[in-house]
């Protein structure tokens, strides 16, 4: 009975609406889909979305791993508060993050006023989009890598050290390989979230077609023009890509379970 309720609720809220989207895009056919996908504005929006998401996820991997390492390994005043702050992007509504970042990076904002004389424009450019995506993606990397780091046994490092490895060698040859699946999963999660992100991006992006217009925004624009077909086609392309990402994440976890005996 409880299984019946679970399935019924899941079907009503999630599966039927998603199936509606799939069905509608299927009725477009490959020709119609191709037509929308290769439209210059759509293509540019997809390029901007995926490009900025990729850069943001890479930056998050570097800093996310450092943050996780510092939180797991070192004791310093305020560590618990810092640890809690990492989850801020999960808790702060995206629209709030969006206007706050725009205020910071606009020409006379706290950060923007230092960058402007250097000729660096952040607000209303792809750099601004990337910064918003770094904000929302960071906790995905930290929270995926952190628990795995906590499980590292000291003996492994001691063995490496007694065998004459320098600290750098121990980290790069012994610790990092074991963390790779977790880092990859964190990267994929941050990337997937970034591609679909809307609220935190649209304020700082400035939304200039072909320059700083992201794919989710183009869906909204098409909807406002009552071009449901166009909106559906872009959504279907994005959905296809995010389900592929989901599949890749599952593959990484299966591989990690076989190779390292843990799943992130």
């Amino acid at each position: 009975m409880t299984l019946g309720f679970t399935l019924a609720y899941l079907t009503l809220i999630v599966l039927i609406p998603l199936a509606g989207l799939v069905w509608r895009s299927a009725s477009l056919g490959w020709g119609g889909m191709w037509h929308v996908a290769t439209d210059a504005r759509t293509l540019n929006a997809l390029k901007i979305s995926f490009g900025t998401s990729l850069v943001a996820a890479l930056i998050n991997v570097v800093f996310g791993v450092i943050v996780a390492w510092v939180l797991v390994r070192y004791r310093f005043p305020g560590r618990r508060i810092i640890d809690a702050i990492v989850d801020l992007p999960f808790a702060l509504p995206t629209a709030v993050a969006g206007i706050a970042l725009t205020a910071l990076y606009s020409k006379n904002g706290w950060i923007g006023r230092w960058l402007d004389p250097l000729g660096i424009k952040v607000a209303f450019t792809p750099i601004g989009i990337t910064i918003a995506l770094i904000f929302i993606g960071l906790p995905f990397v930290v929270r995926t890598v952190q628990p795995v780091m906590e499980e590292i046994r000291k003996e492994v490092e001691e063995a490496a050290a007694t065998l004459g490895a320098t600290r750098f060698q121990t980290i790069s040859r012994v610790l990092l390989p074991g963390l790779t699946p977790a880092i990859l999963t964190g990267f994929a999660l941050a990337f997937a979230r970034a591609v679909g992100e809307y609220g935190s991006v649209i304020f700082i992006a400035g939304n200039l077609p072909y320059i700083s217009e992201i794919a989710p925004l183009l869906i909204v624009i098409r909807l406002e023009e009552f071009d449901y077909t166009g909106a559906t086609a872009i959504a279907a392309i994005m959905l296809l890509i995010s389900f592929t990402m989901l599949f890749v994440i599952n593959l990484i976890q299966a591989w990690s379970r076989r190779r390292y005996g843990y799943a992130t």
Partner: protein
Amino acid sequence: MRHELPQPPQAAAGSWHPATTESRTARFILVSVALVFLGLFLLLPLISVFFEAFRKGPAAYFAAFADHDALAAIRLTLLVAAIAVPLNLVFGVVAAWTIAKFEFKGKAFLTTLIDLPFSVSPVISGLVYVLLFSTHSALGPWLKSQGIEILFAVPGIVLATVFVTFPFVARELIPLMQEQGTTDEEAALSLGANGWQTFWHVTLPNIKWGLLYGVLLCNARAMGEFGAVSVVSGHIRGLTNTMPLQVEILYNEFNTVAAFAVASLLALLALVTLVLKTLLELKYGAELAANGGH
């Protein structure tokens, strides 16, 4: 006879450190990098919300809440969360109970399906309901003839919110209940308790902190959701604007102080959520199971 204990090498006095950690300098650099990065990317935006909200003083700040549309937005946000969170709470408990306590085929697949809304862009979460209920859809004309409004009205906003917050409670409880197993319930049943009594007196007390944790995260997202709600709301002032949408409208009208004032309430909600979440983790970390964040 005295044994001399081997001493660590003293050659470079003060720079010695165990082989399983980094040098003092390296540690200092790493901690600084982490702190500067978090300060710049996370803390500064949060601080600037409150700074911008009070830029023209407390009077201007509080004036923002005297506005009818702002109050209507606050009421709507509370209403939507009051419907969406309990719905997903009931679903989350039932789904986790089903997955953790029973054996059936396709369990792993069902767990993946429950997580599905997390991998869908918020805009697409709204779009699927537009496609389902718009006047061009199969359902649309019939709903219209019955006088039922879903899109650009409160039901649509609730549906979109339920969609995006769908997995929160379930995914918190599934690993927790799986870890707890079924022995407690079996004991209760063998002592003559019925199914409902078992759930109420045995299962629920076991999962209460995990449940609270899930509800906390679910509520934060429900009140703060922007993309999905923005697509289905229609942005009718005083009627279908939630707080995040009101923030957008005020901001686009260059009413910065009012926009940040409403935003500051949402930021406070985020802070309260973080504090409660951290307290729960500190106090009941073991009971929440080691499922590490999200």
